[in-house]
């Protein structure tokens, strides 16, 4: 199970990568496997402001629906438009082409509340 080292993770299986004040958010390999073949993704609008752990979208497979929550308080700067026609990118490349949104962080200290890859791995084992 892939759990890249340079990412932060949430208990709801979202990940966030950092580049200064900018971040990229997606769901983990574990999450996409649980969902199965993804058929539809609902994403927020650009410029939308979100509080930490607020719901920002929905990911659907044939028989299941999963809400996704933002790991940090932020403003949405970009959404992954490719997912409209190719939702399967999330299954194929959850940490790369399957990214969901790009954001501008409001409070970097919130990252302390998230798990690193080692903690997330243990978390998965416990589940």
């Amino acid at each position, binding site marked *: 199970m892939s759990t890249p080292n340079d990412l932060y993770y949430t208990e709801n299986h979202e990940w966030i990568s950092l580049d200064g004040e900018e971040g990229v958010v997606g769901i983990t390999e574990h999450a996409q496997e649980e969902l199965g*073949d993804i*058929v*539809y993704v609902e994403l927020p609008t650009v410029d939308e402001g979100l509080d930490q752990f607020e719901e920002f979208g929905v990911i*659907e*497979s*044939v*028989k299941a629906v999963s809400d996704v929550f933002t790991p940090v308080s932020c403003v949405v700067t970009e959404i992954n438009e490719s997912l409209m026609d190719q*939702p*399967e990118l999330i299954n194929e490349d959850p940490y790369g082409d399957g990214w969901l949104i790009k954001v501008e962080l409001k409070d970097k200290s919130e990252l302390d509340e998230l798990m690193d890859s080692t903690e997330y791995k243990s978390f998965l084992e416990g589940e």
Partner: protein
Amino acid sequence: MAERLIKDYSSPGRKGYSLPPLEIPEVDMGDYIKESYFRDELKLPEVSEVDVVRHYTALSELNYGVDSGIYPLGSCTMKYNPKRNEDIARIEGLSQLHPYQDEEDLQGSFEFLYELKRDLAEISGMDEMTLQPASGAHGELTGLLIIREYFEDKGIEKSKVIVPDSAHGTNPASAVMAGFDIVEIESNKDGMVDIDKLKEAVDDKVAALMLTNPNTLGIFEKDIKEIADIIHDAGGLLYYDGANLNAIMGYARPGDMDFDVLHLNLHKTFSTPHGGGGPGSGTVGIKEFLRPYLPRPVLKKDAKNYYWDYDRPKSIGKVHAFYGNYGVLVKAFSYIKTLGGEGLTKTTENAVLNANYMKAKLKEEFLLPYQENSLHEFVLSGVKQKEKGASTLNIAKRLLDYGQYAPTIYFPLVVKEAMMIEPTETENVDTLNRFIETLKKISEEIEKNPELVKNAPHNTSVRKLDEVKAARQPNLRW
């Protein structure tokens, strides 16, 4: 070979219909309607009567109904649909009635509808019924709207409805449509309502608790009186989802368990056909204090006649443009008259007997997650089989290869790899044995040749269908 679409039979100019002649002098429609309102083209098929008959006959052969074999879907009560009820529903004097005919022309129908209301009230222990809701979910909505109206009328603010996590999806969906927020409570380790969690969830904003009893595991909530007291003491009402009524007719009545509102599914308990998804009927029963809020009109009787009472100022309004699914009500009434009180009780006894027999014979091979006594249905888990290489879904599809319908799968949500089985009373022991043997055989197949089960079905008119493609690239019309 797959059957074509009806439009593939089409040939320009081909006709399959016969209409009476115009007879009157020609009328120039352009004198009355602007040219721009006439349609250019109507792209419907042009086929002969023989084409239509052959096509839909061919399609029927690709289907499996209760008349084809066992249909053990949990909480669906797929019992035999008596043919005499079909004949009766087609009696012209009963079916060729327009909804706005004079009441004096309808006294026969009113008579049986009134008796049906009374019989359903007696069976369920309620004070009055409305026949207007056209499905179970429609009944839930109606019942919850009645509850909502009651509290509004009393000036009591209510915003929440409690629903157990084992509830059918229509329960929370209906509550939201009725304007409530949902509070979901976790079932306890025995699959029953967790009394402590219920006490925590209850407050003065709770309008109702929705329950089915027996629950979706087929287990009777023995604490029902305590549950009723908890809700009532907090000022809430108790709603009964009647989907599982086949388990208790003649033995217990929701009205006696202190339920305030309920719906019954006539297409389940009362044998009316499922029609491939409908029509059904979800008649709603209430206790006396909720009478003012019933949808209008209400069927009443005075010294001489039956009539519709529209003068209902506190009514929730209407949920159906006319009076509900009358054509379904006729069939349910015929069924009830065929059986009578004793027959309905015997029905329940045999539904429970059949289910418990199947459970006794299957609980070794499959995991039985809840050991408690169950009534008309039971839930098995396919986890042992999953470890050996095939899921409940695979088992269900493999059953189809043996010409038998699968039970309900992956419901209730509280059981992993769930298989919810309800045989009903109309199956005989040979059919039950055959089903049991087939399930055991499939379990063996999973040990010896899991790929065979994983790639099922093999013998049906189509192989496993690509649901992912259907959702990603929707093709919803020709």
